[in-house]
């Protein structure tokens, strides 16, 4: 630690930081634009000037850019010396000479870093009377709106987009004051992480296009902490509502999980909650005419009387919902809602993580790894934020180069200059090319069976005691040998695999590689991806698979938040459902399953309910209800409790907290999740935490057209937050942070004030609780040694291909995401395409395990012979797709 003096006060700071970070961490407001905790400093905006003194006797000092000076021992600086203040106000005045008079129509207004910094720097009146330079805008796709006039040339966007997120279609053009940030031509931004530009850009150049459609100011949003529901990573989000619809999703800082960023699916997939496919009314026998809550429940009571019930939960529903359903129907009659195959895969992955001696990493730990080996996954499409973390992880090893040259890592430009394009080892074995290939040292494309075998070869070269699969070519062994030596050359290797290529041997091989590295004394991590937001939670809760539960004879079926047609073939599900007298479905969006329901009960999405998800790391995280909808919608677990009450088997539990507590009492594996958040009676200074800001507007007018008398606001019995602006507005416990705000800091960068040290952990610790830790005693090498893949006659073997937009059920119902979803497709290599006599872009009829689908042919030459990549999770695609026959 270094001792430095800021404004005459002494502080102990990390000498590896710069003076700007040190000053902000110490609580001083120093304005800045180009610096970002994740991007480092480049000193381009000149806004963070402070005065640095030579020693105690120096009274004059000199102006320095605090972001470009190390916080070295004995530094003496002043952030409020008059020459620094004057310099900063001159700089902001210059930056603002071209800024348009746009704030009233700018979506960034009210949470704009430029507004905050302008006020902080003391610039008020425009003195520059000459013309403003203007720019033409570009169309950047359905997610991002472009308004180049507002640019202040801080370069954050390209540094984030290119250097951090690995995109290459956003760049900076032209020179001097004409500098332009955009694409070479109009077009959709290709990066899966383009949405973060909205938060990274300090002004309104890049804004959220979905928010623009239902524009709302930050202060008018009712916000609550939430967890993204669109994949198994479990990124922390803040969801905002106004006038009964969800308006936007913002990232919620969690150092361990997503840090500052989100992927585009998480940020823009929220609109499924506002879609016209939402179920908001009770439906009995296909009609909602004249159906009320009472009549629907009368129907249910009659239907359930003396009948045996089966309950099917869901990996996209919360733990509490699954638990409540299990409680209603009994352990024997409860299914987690996964097909047998998917259940086995997920169970294998979880058991491996629990019984092995390799730890599953959080995204932060991923970022600290040094070499990466990916087996069988296209991570960018299946767990996008993990891919972003891997991009950071492989930079670690090259950082020593900068260290040796004495360049601190925050000094971005010279560090980048010395590192150039070098990066640590990343090896990918997958069925076909993926987005991470651009930074991969080697790739191996083959069928899942061969990927597993390849994994075992790598494991053998790490630990020669492990057996070597037979019949390998020289090319494969030399590739594997290189991977083994690369992984052994670093102290912290990471092995990534997942359930998405639907092959148990791949998971087992990945585990063997990791265990072998552990035996070799490496600090190795093993990360498995899962399909849905709560797959891990549902499997940990335990229940039967779909096939198993349907063997039980029963008359009534209750399905909660699950579309069974996404689990098994249409034929199978049709025949299963036809055996039941009543099919009761609780869901929030219309699906193929709701079409078969005799009764549909409307329930809330994750923004209209409290709940807990367990992510791929095994981290249990709590999400909260954002607002109370005006329709009949309530939480799924509460709806199940209503059913229990209606059939005279009422539960003792009253509110969310009770359900969580009894979940823990009945399931020891979840011990501790009741402490994820303070209980509902928790108060700060005698008040609940407010979901609405102090400046929330319009509450005596927004419903005045319906009723001019304002009704008593609804109280939240389930959490320690209030639904109104009444309540505590200071810094809440980290699991209850409803939005980021500090005096003078209206933008999301107020996060600085919530962190112990800028870019580090939050005051009060990062929320979430790890449920899976390696037991270390019970591990074994799997050594399953599968047979090599063989092309069988005319048939093709189907490999699921996941797409970030389209493969996930809920986000593909969102309006903006829909624009990015392609048609259902089949990927073939040219040889197989020629054999089947089909051409690229042709729409053909194929049979997937006997179920016909119409798909578009795309040529993918790195796909092995005899394989067909099928768009997984797309509408009308059989989830069982092992055998593919082309019908034409």
């Amino acid at each position: 630690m270094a001792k430095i003096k800021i404004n005459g006060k002494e502080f102990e700071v990390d000498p590896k930081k710069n003076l700007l970070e040190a000053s902000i961490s110490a609580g001083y407001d120093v304005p800045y634009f180009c610096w970002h905790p994740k991007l480092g400093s480049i000193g381009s905006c000149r806004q963070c000037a402070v005065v640095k003194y030579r020693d105690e006797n120096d009274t004059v000092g000199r102006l320095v850019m605090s972001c470009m000076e190390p916080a070295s021992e004995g530094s003496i600086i002043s952030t409020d010396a008059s020459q620094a203040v004057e310099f900063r106000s001159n700089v902001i005045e210059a930056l603002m000479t071209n800024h348009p008079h746009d704030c009233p129509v700018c979506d960034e207004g009210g949470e704009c870093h430029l507004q905050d910094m302008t006020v902080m720097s003391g610039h008020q009146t425009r003195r520059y009377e000459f013309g403003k330079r203007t720019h033409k805008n570009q169309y950047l796709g359905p997610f991002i709106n472009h308004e180049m006039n507002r640019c202040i040339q801080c370069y954050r966007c390209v540094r984030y987009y290119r250097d951090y997120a690995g995109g290459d279609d956003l760049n900076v053009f032209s020179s001097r004051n004409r500098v332009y940030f955009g694409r070479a031509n109009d077009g959709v931004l290709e990066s899966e992480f383009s949405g973060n530009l909205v938060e990274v850009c300090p002004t309104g150049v890049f804004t959220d296009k979905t928010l623009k459609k239902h524009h709302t100011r930050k202060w008018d949003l009712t916000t609550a902490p939430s967890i993204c529901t669109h994949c198994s990573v479990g990124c922390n989000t803040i969801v905002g509502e106004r006038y009964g619809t969800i308006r936007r999703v913002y990232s919620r800082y969690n150092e361990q999980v997503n840090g500052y960023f989100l992927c585009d699916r998480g940020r823009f997939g929220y609109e499924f909650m506002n879609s016209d496919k939402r179920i908001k009314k009770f439906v009995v026998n296909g009609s909602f005419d004249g159906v009320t809550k009472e009549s629907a429940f009368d129907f249910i009571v009659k239907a359930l009387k003396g009948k045996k019930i089966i309950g099917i939960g869901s990996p996209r529903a919360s733990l509490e919902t699954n638990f409540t359903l299990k409680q209603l129907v009994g352990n024997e009659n409860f299914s987690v809602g996964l097909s047998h195959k998917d259940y086995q895969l997920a169970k294998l992955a979880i058991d491996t993580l629990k019984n092995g001696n390799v730890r599953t990493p959080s995204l932060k730990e991923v970022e600290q790894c040094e070499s990466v080996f990916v087996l069988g996954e296209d991570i960018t499409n299946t767990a996008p934020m993990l891919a972003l973390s891997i991009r950071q992880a492989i930079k670690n090893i090259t950082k020593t180069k900068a260290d040796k040259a004495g360049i601190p890592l925050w000094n971005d430009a010279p560090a980048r200059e010395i590192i150039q394009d070098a990066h640590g080892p990343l090896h990918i074995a997958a069925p076909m090319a993926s987005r991470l290939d651009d930074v991969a040292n080697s790739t191996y494309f083959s069928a899942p069976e061969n990927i597993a075998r390849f994994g075992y070869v790598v494991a053998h070269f790490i630990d020669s005691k492990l057996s070597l699969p037979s019949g390998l070519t020289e090319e494969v062994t030399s590739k594997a040998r290189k991977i083994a030596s690369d992984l052994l050359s670093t102290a912290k290797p990471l092995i990534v695999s997942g359930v998405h290529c639907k092959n148990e041997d791949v998971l087992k091989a990945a585990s063997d590689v990791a265990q072998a590295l552990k035996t070799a004394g490496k600090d190795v991590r093993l990360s498995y991806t899962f399909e849905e937001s709560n797959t891990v939670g549902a499997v940990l809760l335990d229940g039967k698979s779909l096939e198993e539960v349907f063997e039980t004879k029963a008359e009534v079926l209750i399905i909660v938040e699950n579309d069974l047609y996404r689990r098994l073939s249409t034929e199978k599900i049709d025949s299963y459902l036809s055996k039941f007298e009543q099919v009761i479905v609780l869901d929030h969006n219309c699906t193929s399953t709701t079409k078969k329901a005799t009764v549909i009960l409307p329930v809330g999405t994750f923004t209209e309910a409290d709940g807990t998800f367990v992510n791929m790391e095994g981290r249990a995280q709590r999400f909260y209800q954002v607002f109370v909808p005006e329709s009949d919608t309530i939480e799924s677990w509460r709806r199940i409790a209503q059913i229990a009450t209606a059939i005279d088997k009422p539960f003792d539990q009253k509110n969310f907290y009770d359900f969580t507590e009894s979940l823990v009492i009945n399931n020891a594996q979840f011990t501790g999740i009741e402490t994820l958040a303070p209980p509902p009676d928790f108060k700060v200074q005698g008040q609940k935490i407010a979901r609405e800001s102090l400046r929330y507007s319009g509450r005596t007018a927004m419903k005045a057209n319906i009723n001019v008398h304002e009704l008593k606001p609804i109280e939240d019995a389930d959490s320690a937050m209030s639904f109104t602006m009444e309540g505590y507005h200071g810094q809440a416990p980290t699991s209850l942070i409803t939005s980021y705000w500090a005096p003078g800091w209206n933008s999301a960068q107020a996060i600085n004030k919530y962190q112990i040290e800028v870019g580090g952990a939050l005051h009060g610790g990062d929320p979430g609780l790890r449920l899976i830790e390696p037991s270390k005693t019970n591990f074994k090498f799997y050594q399953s040694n599968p047979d090599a893949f063989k092309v069988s006659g005319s048939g093709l073997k189907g490999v699921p291909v996941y797409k970030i937009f389209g493969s996930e059920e809920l986000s593909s119902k969102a309006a903006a995401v829909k624009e990015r979803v392609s048609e259902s497709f089949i990927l073939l290599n040219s040889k197989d395409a020629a054999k089947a006599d089909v051409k690229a872009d042709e729409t053909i009829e194929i049979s997937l395990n006997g179920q016909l689908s119409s798909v578009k042919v795309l040529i993918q030459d790195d796909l092995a012979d005899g394989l067909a990549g099928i768009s997984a999770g797309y509408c009308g695609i059989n989830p069982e797709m092992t055998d593919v026959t082309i019908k034409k």
Partner: protein
Amino acid sequence: MLSHLRSIGLALKHTFAKRETIQYPDEKVDLAARYRGRIVLTRDPDGMERCVGCYLCAAACPVDCISLQATNDESGRRYPEFFRINFSRCIFCGYCEEACPTYAIQLTPDYEISEYDRKNLVYEKEDLLIAGQGKQHGYNFYRVAGMAITGKDKGEGQNELPPVDVKGLMP
């Protein structure tokens, strides 16, 4: 005794003084243009709605009686989808007018808005929008702002240079 007489004298004097009471409603009081009465939404010199739905009036309102929703039309202009003022809550403080960056919302010298039924005091956009420019003449926000709208492209606003040719090679 003397003070009693003085008081009676004063009272008598006032009997012949000029009347301050106005025979309302037959006679109307003469109010200044800046009087803070009924709120209106004005139009710009081209006859288009001035309000751009920035929510500043709603944020400034101390009794939270303004609520609106912004939306965009094809020309790129932003305007309020609905704009509601609950006059039964309004305290006519004029903060909304002060906050308005486009001179759209203005208070007028009309105070005769009493109703028997409270719900009739809830004014929607059609009730608030007037045909003219109100007190502030000549101001057109989109002429000053950098946003392009149909009929005013980039670089055609006041004090704006023509759009930069990004591919230009001149130093």
